[in-house]
């Protein structure tokens, strides 16, 4: 029964970790993209003829903003859907006791 408790605890913490990974990444990029898009619109409103040039630079920045959020989201999704490595470690450690 003890092993069930431990596994449950690890699963709970893993879900929390995955939620934090995904949500903070989303929060960060949301703020970043908001600022980016707002400043881009401001710039285009001031000097419409610079639109295409600013657009290209904005996409470069979008790529930079996006990147590390994507990594963090993937780590979260891996914890959610693929086999949880922390859980596997506990199960391996407990195997002689279970069998």
């Amino acid at each position: 029964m003890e092993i069930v408790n431990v596994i449950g605890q690890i699963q709970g913490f893993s879900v929390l970790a995955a939620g934090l990974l995904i949500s903070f990444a989303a929060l960060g990029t949301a703020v970043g993209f908001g600022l980016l898009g707002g400043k881009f619109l401001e710039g285009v409103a001031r000097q419409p003829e610079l639109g295409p040039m600013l657009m290209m630079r904005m996409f470069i920045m979008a790529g930079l903003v996006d990147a590390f959020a994507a990594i963090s989201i993937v780590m979260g999704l891996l914890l959610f859907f693929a086999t949880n490595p922390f859980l596997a470690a506990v199960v391996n450690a407990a195997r002689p006791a279970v069998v």
Partner: protein
Amino acid sequence: MSEAQVITPGQYIEHHLEHLTLNLKTFSIGDGGGFWTLNLDTLIVSVLIGIVVFGTLRMVATRLTEVPGKMQNLVEMVFEFVNNAVHEIFHHKTTFIPSLALTIFLWVFFMNAMDLLPVDLLPRFLGLFGVPHFKSVPTADPNATFAMSLSIFALIVIFNLKAKKHRLLKEMLIFPFGPYLFPVNVLFRLIEECVKPLSLALRLFGNMFAGELIFILIAIMPWWLQWPPGAIWAVFHILIITLQAFLFMMLTIIYLSMAHEGH
């Protein structure tokens, strides 16, 4: 996903995240040998793409005509785009950096574009010939992206040495806080240089791996539900593919021109 034995989503994902490996110690396929392991799938796909893409460029270059055909037009467009991007940033006379940038852009672009193939197509097809695992996107393998970014790191060092020679040491010692704080200056400079290859590689790898994983997650859904999210993500992913290839190229140019011009 319609094998006779039922496999769980976790196993399906794990199966798709394994490389086709070659152990260099025992020359056996499929078992990990720690450091001495070659990811055969990454190597084969990236080299094949390189041969096809640059073979095509070579073919177009040897058959230049006065009135360009469709293919020549396309190649000239890409060529001019890259050339402009380079000369906007790098203001010296150079033929090396534009060619490097074109190579990086096209190679990374087509390696990323392997992501748009259905996730089960190549593994399933090669599975018929007894290949256990196959990951078809080279840039979703950190080894490939780190190989590229470390080569660029080496180029940055070479450019630094070539452009500044003995002034490089002076620049490392007195920039940005002046000569009295030289340990801090050297430390800052080292961190600045080491972060470049790291962020370059991790950015490309992270984006491609994320895209790949989301395609795999979509593939777990029942077949009648896969189409809408698959289509949406594929369209969005076309943007990411181009953007990341472009970004890799731009950052390379920026780093190299920084190395050439100095602070």
